[in-house]
């Protein structure tokens, strides 16, 4: 079919720094003309959440999960040196100083570069996340979708 190279990334983590690594690699691979897929599962799903509250019907547990988890990449904490939210503020300042692209912009850039953002539907159910709460123009699937994209991939990473 295509002779394009492929990169697939599993984003399992919901930390700002780890998501940033995933999205930088995804954008870099897209610039190499790779077909890129990021499979978001568990805490990584939070990267796909819209930053506003979306009214959807939920049970008690699902509501609690929804409140406790970050709504989108910009609200994520750091995996190290989070210091109750001071860490992310500091790193964002440092990033600005060094002209590094903020994580929300990296997500937009990935969508612009046609990186396939895939949300794991099984863990969406576990965490009580619904399609309406996630970004538009993303894909939904499970392990088979990920393996399908990865079996002929040149690079695959778990972050």
């Amino acid at each position, binding site marked *: 079919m295509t002779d394009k190279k492929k990169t697939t990334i599993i984003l399992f983590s919901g930390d700002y720094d780890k998501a940033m690594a995933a999205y930088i*690699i995804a*954008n*870099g691979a*897209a*610039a*190499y*003309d790779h077909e890129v897929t990021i499979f978001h599962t568990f805490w990584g799903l939070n990267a796909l959440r819209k930053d506003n509250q979306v009214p959807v019907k939920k049970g008690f547990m699902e509501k609690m999960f929804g409140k406790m988890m970050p709504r989108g990449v910009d609200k994520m904490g750091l995996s190290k040196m989070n210091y109750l939210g001071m860490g992310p503020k500091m790193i964002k300042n440092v990033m600005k100083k060094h*002209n590094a*692209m903020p994580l929300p912009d990296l997500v937009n850039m990935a969508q612009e570069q046609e990186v396939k953002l895939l949300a794991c539907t099984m863990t969406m159910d576990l965490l009580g996340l619904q399609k309406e709460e996630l970004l538009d123009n993303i894909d939904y699937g499970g392990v088979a979708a990920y393996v399908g994209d990865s079996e002929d991939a040149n690079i695959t990473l778990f972050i």
Partner: protein
Amino acid sequence: MESVKVLDAKGLACPMPIVKTRKAIQEINAGEILEVHATDKGAKSDLAAWAKSGGHELLKDTQEGDVLKFWIKKA
């Protein structure tokens, strides 16, 4: 060296120089030369590897102060 296009990627951090270079090279024709100016210290390895992978030729690179300059011939 005659470049048909100059990309100013100064001040940009990883991965933007590569993302912008890819966009810029899509806008020129095969055999034409793209000139890239960058200040990211990783740009030299990045652009050399990127050009090689795409079959493009990195004709020359220089450093003037903090600014790294590259000339890439599109394949």
